């Protein structure tokens, strides 16, 4: 399945890219993050993150569909 992933802030720096299209067999954000965490050595734990699918906050266990857009959201710090 193809999933579009965007990276922000510390995840963008650690992945050394802003976005990519993943070709993977994992179908929920939790499994995908665990895969990416190993791949890019992400410092953040899942418990520190939120996840957005197609620009909406979602659960880490939601089933993804082909070409969904996926964003892992580090702790925010606006203002």
């Amino acid at each position, binding site marked *: 399945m193809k999933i579009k992933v*965007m990276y*922000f*802030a*510390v995840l963008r720096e650690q992945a050394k890219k802003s976005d990519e299209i993943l070709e993977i067999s994992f179908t929920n954000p939790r499994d995908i993050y665990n895969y990416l965490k190993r791949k890019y050595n992400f410092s953040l734990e899942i418990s520190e993150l939120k996840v957005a699918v197609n*620009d909406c906050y979602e659960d880490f266990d939601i089933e993804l569909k082909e070409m969904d857009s996926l*964003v892992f959201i580090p702790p925010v*710090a*606006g*203002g």
Partner: protein
Amino acid sequence: MFEISIDSIEEYKSKSLLTPDCGAVVTFEGRVRNHNEGQCVDSLEYEVYKTLAEKEGEKILQNAKVKFHIINAFCIHRIGHLQIGDLAVWIGVTSKHRREAFKACEFIINSVKEAVPIWKKENYCDKSIESKWVYCQEDYH
């Protein structure tokens, strides 16, 4: 309305928010401070997940309107590389009575800091200290 701006922003005039039944306007300016948690700060870099930020920001303003019976609310947040004294966020709230405007304005800035996908990285005066993505902290601004 909630806006994200890559360009430098100024304190807005309340003029565009005014209505004849408005008795109170409360505004908040969040500015880049020269220190945080004992560290001398040189500049800040803000990054945004724009689509979701605009959606969440708009939701916060609508919630504030319903919750506090205010008339209007507006928020603009800047992103990019900001220097000391620069305006990072401006909020304006209008209402009939002042109490609601104060409450709503504080609610909006608190919610923006908690829920809107914006991140900031602190660059320090002491260049031997590595720049750091900071988390929303109670004591910022």
